[in-house]
């Protein structure tokens, strides 16, 4: 038996649930993860990622030395031909030197050299082209402190709001809808309250695979507390086994289905009139728009039986405590904002919000996507969702950051997708990426690749050279969760501690230290007075942010040491706020928005008869930077396309057959899983696998308000292919799990 040198309590780096982990460390090596059974969020339960998926920390491909391209070191001009950027091939083997210009080699260097190259080039471009040429991707995996500092660096030093992160690609639709309707942008209640629901709707979320611990709580609510679950999803997900009803809608038809439910609630007079009268506005205008959304109309569009829509509407409306949990099936559409609004209307009509056991609950994806958004890693907001175009907000942050009056930029910044599509002469010239991987997570990757090559200077701050880091000019080796201190804010707004289990490997440094070091070098070159970068520990960073952002004002590391605190925490003795909107909404009254049905941008036709919907797998995480470099990859090593047996038969496809999936934008070859988990006419692909990247196929159409791309629906064709066409013909997943 091994005796650990120490056991470090920290927060899981994967999904937004925020499970407590205990890392058992021996000789600076984590060999086991456990979770205390009194942990506040997960009660000792973990999923495969949290319990076993930490070994990417020690993967041999991890980079722990600063790297710069040879051309920089030798003072040469940047070489042409940036297509050949993969110094490491997809199998992890180095590409032969003969195929790559030597100037493009990575050269190991020291921190001073690497950071000076970054500072020199960023300042050079800023002085030449101004604020609009600068942009940064913050990171929903990194801590609150890291994100706060990075947006501060770009806003305070480069005076730009071109700051965004992957929230744009997951819940931007929900965030914008919630901002418009209630004036907030987080879960209204905690996930643990699901056991207090008597009816709840799960839609657009494969909770069992993406928020596994919340799924356990949902199953417990059904099995042990008598709750009724309604699943609205185009896939027959695992939760359907325990659901009272499953409404299998066609991808992208949320608005008609949920509006028809609202229609039923109004027509059958199941409305909570008191709530509508006291707490909402714009009801009459909304009613007009609702008139045409009869259940029969919704059935025609969505394929869900009108009678089922009626039944679900009655069930939800008549519940004592009803709640809605939703995921990216709602927001990742060219009408993602409207989809989320359709859900919000249901809560307004029934009054199922503002009490324990009810609520509007977007399940946030990343461990710290809530926190990164709270920290102002967004183009329209300072920390605390303060609009950047409001001079009063600007004045507050100018004071906090020691900036001359009127110095910060009032102009709204560009969003994630816009930053890359503006990468050209006269647009974005320099991009700083902390921990993100747009070359996997953006839609229509062939287009993204072109944009990446049009950047003049790219910095990657990460733990691996991922598909995006391969385009970088300088690589700054950061530390993963196990080697740094800070805080994460989980999906239900609980701010929890992250603690280092051991010292950084090699020369890697925590992100916040890299940013502070770099910011000082930039300030020297700009010759400006300092915006404060001398922090002795991450808590000072959080306190600086909390001094201006009232939601976090009462949070100290001491107070969150054991179980965290659920913000808003306005004062040092405030106990936290598990349930929001009990008295009123942040914008005052909840606002109904008239809706119209807009089809997905690319509907299936004779040439591309299937709807492709993308999503995630239990065993993997997003672009795969972490999980594909861990033992999780052994558990699920290949991408597979799910196709319904009826469709498979028509196309002569058997289980495990190689197939080519093609859209108007790209094609990939994967094995088929013939399964009733998907519905007729719909195929499903996970997007974690670089060798068969689903996002080569997806449509880059954007929601006009939230700018979120339409990942959840595009038209594809499926053809039988040969074994030899597969990227890894020898690999076959043999998994019995659903």
């Amino acid at each position, binding site marked *: 038996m091994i005796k650990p040198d120490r056991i470090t309590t920290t927060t899981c780096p994967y999904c937004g649930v925020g499970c407590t982990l205990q890392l058992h460390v021996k*000789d600076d090596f984590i060999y086991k993860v456990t979770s205390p059974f009194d942990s506040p969020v997960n009660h000792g339960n973990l999923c*495969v990622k949290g319990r076993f998926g930490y070994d990417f920390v020690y993967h041999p491909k991890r980079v722990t030395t600063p790297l710069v391209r040879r051309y920089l070191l030798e003072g040469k001009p940047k070489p042409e031909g940036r297509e050949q950027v993969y110094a490491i091939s997809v199998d992890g083997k180095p590409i032969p030197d003969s195929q790559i210009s030597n100037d493009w080699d990575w050269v190991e260097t020291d921190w001073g050299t690497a950071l000076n190259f970054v500072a020199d080039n960023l300042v050079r471009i800023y002085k030449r082209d101004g604020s609009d040429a600068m942009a940064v991707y913050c990171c929903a995996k990194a801590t609150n402190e890291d994100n706060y500092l990075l947006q501060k660096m770009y806003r305070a030093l480069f005076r730009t709001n071109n700051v965004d992160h992957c929230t744009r690609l997951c819940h931007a639709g929900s965030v914008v809808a919630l901002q418009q309707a209630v004036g907030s942008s987080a879960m209204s209640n905690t996930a643990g309250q699901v056991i207090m629901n008597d009816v709840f709707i799960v839609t657009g979320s494969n909770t069992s695979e993406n928020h*596994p611990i919340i799924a356990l709580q949902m199953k417990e609510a059904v099995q042990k507390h008598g709750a009724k679950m309604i699943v609205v999803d185009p896939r027959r997900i695992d939760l359907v086994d325990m659901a009272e009803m499953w409404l299998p809608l066609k991808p992208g038809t949320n608005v008609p289905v949920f509006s028809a439910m609202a229609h039923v609630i109004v027509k059958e007079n199941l409305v909570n009139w008191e709530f509508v009268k006291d707490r909402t506005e714009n009801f009459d205008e909304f009613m007009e728009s609702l008139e045409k959304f009869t259940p029969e109309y919704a059935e025609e569009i969505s394929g869900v039986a009108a009678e089922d829509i009626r039944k679900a509407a009655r069930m939800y409306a008549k519940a004592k405590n009803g709640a809605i949990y939703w995921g990216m099936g709602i927001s990742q559409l060219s009408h993602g904002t409207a989809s989320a609004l359709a859900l919000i209307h249901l809560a307004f009509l029934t009054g199922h919000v503002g009490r324990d056991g009810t609520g509007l609950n977007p399940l946030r994806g990343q461990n710290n996507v809530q926190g990164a958004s709270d920290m102002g890693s967004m183009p329209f907001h300072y920390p605390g969702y303060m609009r950047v175009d409001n001079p009063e907000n600007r004045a507050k942050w100018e004071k906090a950051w020691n900036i001359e009056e009127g110095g910060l930029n009032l102009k709204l910044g560009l969003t994630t997708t816009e930053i890359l599509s503006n990468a050209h002469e006269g647009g974005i010239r320099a991009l700083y990426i902390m921990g993100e991987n747009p070359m996997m997570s953006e839609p229509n990757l062939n287009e993204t690749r072109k944009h990446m090559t049009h950047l003049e200077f790219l910095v990657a701050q990460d733990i691996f050279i991922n598909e995006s880091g391969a385009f970088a000019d300088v690589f700054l080796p950061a530390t993963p969760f196990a080697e740094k201190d800070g805080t994460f804010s989980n999906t239900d707004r609980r701010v929890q501690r992250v603690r280092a289990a051991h010292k950084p490997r090699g020369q890697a440094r925590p992100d916040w230290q890299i940013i502070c070091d770099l910011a000082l070098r930039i300030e020297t070159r700009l010759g400006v007075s300092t915006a404060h970068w001398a922090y002795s520990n991450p808590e000072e960073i959080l306190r600086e942010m909390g001094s201006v952002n009232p939601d976090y004002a009462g949070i100290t590391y001491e107070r969150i040491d054991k179980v965290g605190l659920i913000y808003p925490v306005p004062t040092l003795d405030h106990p936290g706020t598990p349930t929001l909107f009990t008295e009123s909404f942040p914008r005052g009254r909840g606002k109904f928005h008239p809706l119209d049905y807009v089809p997905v941008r690319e509907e299936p036709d004779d040439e591309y008869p299937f709807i492709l919907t993308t999503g995630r797998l239990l065993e993997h995480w997003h672009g795969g930077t972490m999980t594909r470099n861990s033992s999780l990859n052994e558990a699920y*090593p290949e991408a597979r396309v799910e196709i319904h047996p009826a469709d498979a038969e028509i196309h002569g496809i058997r289980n*495990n057959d190689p197939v080519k999936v093609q859209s108007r934008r790209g094609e990939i070859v994967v094995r088929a899983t013939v399964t009733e988990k998907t519905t007729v006419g719909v195929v499903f692909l996970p997007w974690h696998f670089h060798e068969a990247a689903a996002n080569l196929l997806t449509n880059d159409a954007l929601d006009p308000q939230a700018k979120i791309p339409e990942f959840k629906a595009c038209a594809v064709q499926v053809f039988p292919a040969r074994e030899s066409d597969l990227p890894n013909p020898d690999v076959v997943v043999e998994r019995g799990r659903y």
Partner: protein
Amino acid sequence: MTVTFLMDGKEVTAQDGQTLLDVARENGIEIPTICFHEATTANAVCRICVVEVEGMRTLQPSCIVKAATNMKVQTRSEKVVRARKTILEMLSATMDLSEAADIQAMMKEYGARDERFPDAVRRESDIKDDNPMYIRDYSKCLLCWRCVQVCADDAQFTYAINFEGRGYETQIGTFFDKAIPQTTCVLCGQCVGVCPTGALKPKREFLLEKGKTPAEISVMNTGRKQRKPR
């Protein structure tokens, strides 16, 4: 509603429906447990927590027996101590307790002897190493049932493992003895988290014990398993 009764001669009060074990712990009376776990449903499988209740023919497992008015409970009578000692001796005669520190401590406390049943057939089986996350060494399994429970209704609702075999041959297994990846298992490892004896163990802990270095372990997951389709 509360009930009042005697425990080890002392008058104690309990909530209606509270188990004897729970009441004992509240009153600072120590009763040993093996299969009992705060996160799983108590099933009285191991019987180490038995107590003597006046008027009842057999010893009663305190983890499931509810307190009742006027009960007279002895938590450490001679009969109780003898039963506990015998249970420990039978366990130690038939299985590998080398990583069950709590049970070893109990054996010392109760004076249980390893060699009490020299002719016992030991329950031995090969280590099952069939998935990338954890190993199963059923030579160390005392059938406490916790792993089955957390896989089922106590946590995960996945139902990948259960008892197989009958009587002395009983073991924890998958349906049709399939390898873990081919079952409904989602590799969550809740079972590993509640195993009291080291029968279930994270793969990397197992490798480290086998003398592999962290560097050697870290390259192990970079190789791809090669399998033929179908």
